[in-house]
Each structure stands twice: as C-alpha cells, then as structure tokens.
C-alpha cells in the first residue's frame, strides 16, 4: 500500500480573522484521509484555529453534501437542468428577475455574478446574507480600523457583545493586552453574561436590545472631542437625554461615566463590536454608534468588528426584494449562496409563491426548498480572493470540488452562453452614514424604548463552536433566570415552550443567572430556533432587521 501525502495551505474563509489553514491529504489505496494541520510559523494565528477551522475536513466530507441538481426535490441531470433554467429564464424580463448572493462566493465569482446580472439586464441584485453583523458595512468616512497589533498593544478594550464566540481567536490578543499591565482595562457590555464577562474588569449588563443606547450615552459622556465632532446641537441633545439613557439601559450614569473616563484618559484602545442574530433591537444603530464612539474617543482608539462575513457586503435591501415579490414585480429569483433561504425560515415562507426560484448550495438543506437546486463547491474547494480583517487574501482549494458539483462560472456560462465578463462592476463595499441622521434615529429609538412591557424577551446567542451543528449541544436548551423559573415552578431540565408571533418550540430548561429577569436566551445557530425571531423591514434603509422576539413561555407538564 503506497501512501501519498500532500499538504495544502490556504486562508480559512469562514470569518474575517483569516487564519492560515493547512490540510494534509493522504491516500491509502482508494481511501482519502484529510487532517487539519497547524502551522506554528503563521503570523496571524500561530497554528491556532477555532472550531470552524478545525472542522474544515468534516465540512468537505460532510455527509449532507449535495451531489446532483434537484428539480422540485427530485434528482435531475446537469445538462437538462441548465438548459431548462436557461429556457425558463427567457420568459422573464430583466426587471422581473432578482439575483441574490452570499458569503460563499469569492470576489472573482462575485464579478462573474454581476456580469451575469448585466447580461440578463437584472436590476435587483441583493445580498442574501442577512445576519445583523452585515450592518457594519454602513460606516462613517473617518473610522480608523484596528490591526492585530492595535489589539495586542491596547490599554483599554471595550467589547460590545460576545466577541469571543464570534471569533475565539481574538481571545489571546485581548487577554494578553489585559494581563500585560494592571492598569489596562477590559470592559464588556452585553445583555447576557457571556464568557467575556468572566475576564472583564467591568461588565455592564444592559437591558436586552438596548446596547445602542449605552453607546450613545458613552458618546455623550466623552465631552470635548465628542462635541467638536458631532456638533454642538447634537451634543446638547445627547446630554439632555443622558439620564433617560441610563434608566432605559438599566445601568447607572456613574458606571457609564467610568467607562467614558477610561476611554478618554487611556491612550491606545480598541472598540470591539459583535452582534448576534436576534440580540439587539437596532443593529444599524449598534453599528453606527460603535463606530462613532471610535471617532469621538481621543488618543489612538481603533475600531474592530469581528464579524463572520468575508465578502464585500453592500446594502442588503432585502426588504425591497420582498416588497417587489409581493407586488408581483419580481417573479424569479436566482440565488448564489448557501445560507439563504434555509437559514431565514420567516423570509423563505414569504417567497413560497415564486414560480421560478433557483439556488446554489453546498449541502442538502431540509426546510423550504427552491424549485431548482444546484450543487456548487464550498469555499474550501475554490481558488480566489476573499476579504479578511487584515486585507485581501488568496484562498487555494484544499480538495477537489465535491462530485457532481459545478462552479458558479460553469453554471453561468451554460445559462448565458458567450457571456461578457465585466470585472469592473463591483458591489458597493460601504454605505456612508450621516452623523445627524444617526443621532436623530438614536433619540427616536430611545423614545420607543421608554415604555416597558410585561412580555418575555427572547434573545439569540451564537457560538463559533456550534458551527453547522457539529459540536452543538445546546440547541434544545433555553437559558432562564431563577426568578422567572420560580414563578413558573420550573426545575432544571423541565420542558419549556416558547411561543412568539412567528413560531413555537419546546426547549429544555437551563436555569442560570446569566440571563436577566424576564429574558430567555436560545441558541441562534439552529434553524428551528431562528424561526422564533421576527424579521422586520426597516422603513428607512429597507434592510432586514432581526431583533429579539417578544412572546410567552409556558411550562409543559
């Protein structure tokens, strides 16, 4: 038996951190063995990887990989599928077609997709990756972004949201920075106590959904520099509402002032912001105010949004698409991606009447299916360029594309023969924010938050180790505060039903002080759990906003 062993190096495409990732493939007879390797020489991650990177081999060898196109859930030959799609598409004008895409594509593939849209004269090109973190593509022109060394050398770090579970690899630079000097500070703001809380010098537990208000409070407390940047009028408005901000967030004004003081007095710092699915009420404000906080903080503070997206993301405008479908203007959707429609059950149900719906996929999903499903290689089997926090990176294929899949360009060339590639057309990377509008939105948001209801808030929490369910254990668990548990007569591991406007599900009770009273928290990586959360169309931006759900909890006997 001769064994051939080969190691391929690439950049992990699963989040913006861009770890160096190597895979060793050895051949034993007909049997392929893939093992992840750890390159201790790498400057970014020194061989360290999170659960997603570690499980790269199981993502390639996933048993659920789709190996043949499907038409209405039945296997169909590629040649027939592509010629029929091409034929059926001719019935629609460019205006009636929408093209959507997500982060399973390289930058080059995105160019091809745009050329495809041009060839079909399609006007609606929309991102189908709707996670709230994409709101970080809205930004101010003068945001200063952090590099790895800025995090390592920081004297003060403000983490908003669970940054460790978004990118566990950030833990080392953050903790190194904290432990380096006893005066260094790590602050943490969140509505639930995540693992970051155990390491923070101070943990501000805000009322669920109100993180943006705390940020507004910090901006108001920073003083001189804030005043000169946001302007006298805005500054006075914010100062006036400071007391109600504290009340709304459930935090004392002194505590906010303390953090603001550290941000003002300590040099070198990083503001790290992470948003989970179903965790904050207004992700756009969250993104805008966390960036504004960087801009108004004096002395070399930087901003970092460790999000999962590694593509130019642009405006999502998905709300517009849904409206157009409902009005019958858009009749056909072609999706290039893997997450949509499966991970957005509420949205998929809104699109059920579409006559023509094609989607590429890397693995078989089982919720709502489009009528055409085309298997494509995963990012681990592609070559091309992706975006990372530290600039653009080239990825190399770790394995041959899965049997029966076709690349995006092969598919497109068959649907539109002689397609002309126009690589210059790029999706707009950033959408610029305006300070006055943001402050106005924030003040209105504060007004809307003032009245409190007796309803239970259901929050989502994501975890890097829950990736694709491979190490997922908690999807059926629900975190509930001891006081609420007592009211309902609940014991640990009892069954608890959650009812929201959109769905209901039974969970196993996990009584913990890590969620505040009248709040429960569920894992947001699971598709079933995701259907509990409403997906609203933001009236100003037309983006999809996924906020915490309101609902009821009932003990099941």
């Amino acid at each position, binding site marked *: 038996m001769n064994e051939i062993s080969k190691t391929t190096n690439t950049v992990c495409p699963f989040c913006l951190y861009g770890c160096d990732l190597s895979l060793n493939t050895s051949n034993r007879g007909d049997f392929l063995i893939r*093992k*992840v390797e*750890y390159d*201790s020489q790498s400057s970014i991650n*020194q*061989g*360290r*990887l*999170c*659960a997603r*990177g*570690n*499980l*790269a*081999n*199981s993502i390639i060898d996933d048993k659920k990989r789709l190996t043949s196109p499907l038409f209405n859930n039945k296997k169909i030959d590629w040649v027939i599928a592509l010629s029929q799609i091409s034929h059926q598409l001719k019935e629609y004008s460019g205006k009636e077609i929408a093209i959507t895409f997500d982060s399973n594509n390289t930058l080059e593939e995105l160019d091809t997709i745009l050329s495809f849209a041009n060839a079909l004269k399609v006007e609606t090109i929309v991102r189908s990756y709707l996670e709230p973190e994409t709101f970080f593509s809205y930004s101010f022109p003068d945001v200063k972004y952090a590099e790895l060394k800025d995090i390592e050398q920081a004297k003060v770090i403000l983490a908003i949201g669970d940054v*460790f*579970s978004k990118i*566990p*690899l950030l*833990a*080392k630079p953050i*903790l190194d920075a*904290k*432990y380096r*000097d*006893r005066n260094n500070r790590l602050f943490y703001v969140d509505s639930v*106590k995540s*693992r*970051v*809380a*155990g*390491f*923070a*010098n*101070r*943990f501000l537990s805000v009322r669920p959904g109100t993180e943006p208000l705390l940020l507004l409070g910090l901006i108001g407390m920073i003083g001189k520099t804030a005043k000169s940047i946001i302007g006298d009028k805005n500054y006075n408005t914010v100062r006036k509402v400071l007391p109600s901000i504290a009340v709304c967030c459930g935090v004392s004004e002194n505590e906010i002032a303390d953090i603001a003081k550290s941000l003002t007095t300590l040099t070198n710092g990083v503001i790290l912001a992470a948003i989970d699915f179903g965790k904050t009420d207004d992700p756009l404000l969250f993104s805008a105010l966390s960036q504004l906080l960087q801009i108004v903080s004096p002395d070399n503070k930087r901003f970092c949004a460790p999000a999962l997206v590694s593509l130019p993301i642009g405006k999502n405008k998905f709300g517009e698409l849904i409206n157009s479908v409902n009005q019958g203007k858009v009749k056909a959707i072609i999706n290039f991606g893997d997450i949509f429609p499966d991970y957005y059950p509420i949205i998929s149900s809104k699109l059920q009447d579409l006559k023509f719906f094609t989607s590429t996929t890397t693995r078989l999903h089982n919720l709502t299916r489009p009528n055409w499903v085309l298997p494509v290689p995963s990012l681990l089997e592609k070559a091309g360029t992706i975006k990372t926090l530290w600039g653009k990176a080239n990825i190399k294929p770790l394995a041959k594309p899965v049997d029966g899949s076709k690349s995006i360009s092969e598919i497109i060339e068959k649907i539109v023969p002689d397609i002309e590639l126009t690589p210059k057309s790029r999706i707009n990377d950033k959408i610029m924010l305006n300070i006055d509008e943001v402050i106005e939105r924030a003040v209105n948001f504060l007004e809307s938050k003032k009245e409190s209801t007796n309803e239970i808030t259901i929050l989502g929490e994501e975890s*890097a*180790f829950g990736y694709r369910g*491979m*190490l997922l254990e908690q999807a059926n668990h629900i975190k509930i505060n001891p006081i609420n548990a007592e009211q309902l007569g609940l014991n640990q591991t009892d069954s608890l039903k959650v009812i929201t406007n959109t769905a209901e599900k039974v969970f196993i009770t996990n009584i*913990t002080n*890590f969620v505040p009273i009248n709040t429960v928290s569920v894992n947001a990586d699971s598709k079933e759990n995701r259907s509990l959360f409403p997906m609203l169309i933001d009236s100003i931006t037309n983006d999809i906003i996924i906020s915490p759900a309101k609902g009821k909890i009932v003990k099941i006997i």
Partner: protein
Amino acid sequence: MEENKKRIYLDLDYCIGCRSCEAACKSAFSESRIRYGEISNTAYFPIACRHCDEPLCAAACPFEVLRATEHGFVLQASFHCVGCKSCILACPFGVLDKSLLHHVSQKCSECKDREAGPRCVASCASGALKYVTEKEVKKIIIGKRFISRSPFWRRQ
C-alpha cells in the same frame, strides 16, 4: 514523575471555553478524546489525559489493551479494545468519555501520529493549553495574574 516528560497543561487564565481543542481532536480522530467541562457557567476547562505515571485506566483494562510505554505515554492498542468500559470507570480524572466509537473507548494518544505534538494544544484558540515539561510549567505564571474587578472575582 519524569521532569523532562512533556504533558498537557491548562492555563485557566486564558481558557475561554471555545472548545477548539475538542474540535481539533474530533476532526483528527472522529470522536473527541479531550473532554470539556464548566463550573456553574463561570470557569471553562478542557479535561486532558494526564498520561499518569501509574495509570489506573491501564490497571483496570482486563486485556492489557491500555499500556504505559517506557517513554511515559499511556497508549491504547485500540484494535484489541472490546469496549468493556472498565478504563472509563477507573480513570480518577474522568478523562475517558463513556461514549464508544465503533465499540472502542476513546483514549488520548497524545497525538503520537503527529510529529509536532498534540493537536488540541496546537489549535487552542487562546493559547491556554500548553505542552511543556514540569520544569517549564513552573515558569508560566498560572492563576497569579492581576486582580480584576470581574463579576466573579476571577483571576485574582
């Protein structure tokens, strides 16, 4: 205990409970051989095999499938394992998981198939796991870092 024998140590001040170590082991061996625990949601830690000088798991194995080698590793000849679970009950640290894979108990081999050493250590997201000798571990300050005002009075 051999002073120069490398073992897997955990720096609790760094472990964030991300379970990359578990994922790394699972990725290489289909089932994880490093377990993961937490104390009332406050401290998180992986439980790695100590490769004991006098391994009780090996003593309990009725078929001598588990054996201490002369280099101080406790290895399993998994082909001969019958899945009787005696070792699982015997390990005083609860390292061995009670679930079997293909009727075989899952015992850490300290990644003997990998020249550069344990995968769990190499992949540890925060650098909390260390593969060092007893002498070297004394040089690493563990549990003695700066006082924090954290909600749990952790890391004092």
